[in-house]
């Protein structure tokens, strides 16, 4: 998992991906550490993908063999009975692979149900594309998957070889691929360790590309082709569009509520207090019934003014809640860095969001962080806070934590329920952990595209 750490001062924060830090800062070798952390994250993620691919590749191999047997038997006639079953297996596996690929990157949307009858299947473009994928994945995909899973074991075995080779029974120990034959001396063991370092280099250098190559046939062939029937896709888009409009409507409702229940109430309070003050002044003017009159009216006017100022502040909050102006100018990384800088509690911000999300999603992410930092500053009594934002696989993950006293409660009238409403509007999830005594952790997941 990539988790970056940068200094706001290094000027990269304004870029597509950036991060900032306020409060205590890191060391000089942050750049190197950053690279190492990122490469490790990428390698781990690639190996996870290759292993997942290995699973479907093994199944693909089985289905391919079955298919071959069916084909041969079909020549004799009996195999024809097996055709629907094997086609169902093929479609099922293809769907499984679509789901897997969608979890690791952009969604792979299939062309919809494919026929299982022999005659239809022979002419069906989807089935033909799935067959081409099956052969590619059962061969190249299988090989890449096996390599990806084997590499870490090889690396571990060979790098640590000098530590344990002398303990094993004679004539058994050897390098993983037989280079140098059987090890008898330290002179034989050290090259093995060097070979292990080679494996490590391959893991860091090649696995991401291997994962991409393994996924390529699936991404190309399992997505709906240009000739595919798109009615299902249209139905899916209609559903997601309805969801997006729902989110939009919820958002508008939230704004309406903020205006009616917040700002308008403040303004009504202003008119009520002004009305009361006028009555007071009108009553007291002719006989001047002592100093109490004007004084009381003055107090009312003061309260009215305060209510008007609150109305302005709430209006500002509502407007900023719709779209924070800074977000459009400087992107999520820049906007959050600005937030951290203005937060009274020292706050570290890590943003790793190479893929830009929909504007409304970024606005929500910004809002969530802004509200949470406000809560932290107001209630938590924390010494420091940390915000990390990672976008991966079509999701934006927010993680906000502080070392304060905990015990945050959603019913306590803090901004938490507002945060939850906003996240829900985007089909996101929110998880809050705040045991008494702390620490408080807020985790939010938002789909990037809605």
């Amino acid at each position, binding site marked *: 998992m990539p988790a970056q750490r940068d200094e706001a001062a290094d000027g990269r924060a304004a870029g597509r991906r950036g991060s900032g830090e306020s409060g205590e800062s890191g060391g000089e070798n942050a750049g190197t550490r950053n690279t190492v952390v990122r490469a490790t994250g990428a390698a781990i993620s690639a190996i996870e993908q290759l292993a997942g691919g290995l699973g479907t590749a093994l199944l693909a191999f089985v289905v391919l063999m079955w298919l071959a047997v069916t084909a041969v038997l079909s020549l004799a006639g009996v195999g024809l009975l097996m055709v629907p079953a094997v086609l169902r297996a093929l479609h099922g596996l293809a769907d499984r692979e679509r789901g897997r690929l969608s979890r690791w990157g952009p969604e792979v949307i299939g062309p919809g149900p494919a026929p299982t009858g022999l005659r239809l299947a022979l002419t069906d473009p989807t089935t033909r594309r799935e067959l081409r994928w099956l052969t590619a994945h059962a061969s190249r995909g299988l090989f890449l998957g096996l390599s990806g899973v084997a590499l870490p074991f090889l690396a571990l075995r060979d790098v640590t070889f000098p530590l344990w080779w002398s303990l094993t029974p004679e004539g058994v120990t050897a390098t993983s691929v037989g280079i140098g034959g059987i090890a008898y001396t330290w002179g034989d063991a050290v090259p093995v360790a060097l070979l292990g370092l080679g494996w490590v280099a391959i893991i860091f250098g090649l696995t991401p590309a291997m994962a991409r190559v393994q996924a390529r046939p699936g991404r190309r062939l399992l997505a709906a082709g240009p000739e595919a029937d798109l009615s299902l896709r249209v139905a899916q888009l209609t559903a997601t569009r309805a969801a997006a409009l729902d989110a939009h409507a919820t958002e508008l409702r939230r704004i309406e*509520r903020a205006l*009616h*229940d917040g700002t*308008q*109430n*403040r*303004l*009504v*309070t*202003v*008119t*009520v*207090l*002004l*009305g*009361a003050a*006028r*009555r*007071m002044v009108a009553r007291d003017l002719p006989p001047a019934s002592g100093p109490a009159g004007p004084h009381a009216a003055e107090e*009312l006017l003061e*309260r009215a003014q305060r*209510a008007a100022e*609150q109305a302005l502040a709430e209006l500002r909050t509502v407007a900023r809640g719709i779209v924070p102006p800074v977000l459009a100018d400087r992107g999520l990384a820049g906007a959050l860095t600005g937030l951290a800088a203005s937060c009274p509690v020292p706050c570290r911000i890590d943003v790793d969001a190479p893929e830009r999300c929909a504007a409304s999603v970024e606005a929500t992410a910004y809002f969530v962080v802004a509200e949470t930092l406000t809560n932290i500053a107001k209630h938590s009594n924390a010494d420091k806070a940390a915000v990390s934002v990672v976008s991966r696989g079509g999701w934006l993950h927010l993680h906000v934590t502080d070392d304060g006293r905990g015990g945050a409660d959603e019913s306590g009238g803090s901004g938490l329920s507002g945060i939850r409403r906003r996240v829900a509007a985007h089909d996101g999830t929110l998880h809050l952990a705040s045991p008494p005594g702390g620490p408080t952790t807020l985790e939010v997941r938002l789909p990037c595209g809605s």
Partner: protein
Amino acid sequence: MRIVIAEDDPLLREGLALLLRAESLDVVATAGTPAEFLTALDAHRPDVAILDVRMPPTHTDEGIVAAIEARRRRPDLAILVLSAYVEQTFATELLTGGVTHLGYLLKERVGRVEEFLDALHRVVAGGTAIDPEVVAQLFTRTRHDVRLERLSPRERDVLALMAEGLGNAAIAERLCVTHGAVHKHIRNIFAKLDLAPTDHVDRRVAAVLRYLEDVRHRV
């Protein structure tokens, strides 16, 4: 006059209480939620309840629901509902329970203290106080009513003010005409709406009701 205020916004609640107390009215309790309001209703036996429409938990029509429930418990209770905006269905729901002892005003009318107090007293005395904007909406909705088309513009103005709950004198003052002229207009309205003088019902109320009834059927 014993008053209970139900309004979830603390500042506005305090502002209202302050205004009414400054007018030497007796605010016996204030409530922030419908539940608190109903408790206060039983505990303090007020003459009138001033209710906000939008209250927790959902901030939609809790005030209306609470008002209807309060009416059920205390049929003689005067109710003045304050709303952030005019909502036809809210007005209709309220009016279904009868138009006496009832007020429905936009929140900002409270700032016009004299008119607000006037409406409050009218409601407590058993009358009606409907916001001019609500009345305007009612009339827009009933424009195609045949009976309404028989009315002259002036008569329609008079009926609108009647629907707001104003008496003859107040209507005369508002329209800058004599008391006798208002009387004549009202007589014409009754005639055009087929309200015979021998009826036992209060023809003023009947005239207004006929329109509200009509609106209710259309909603």
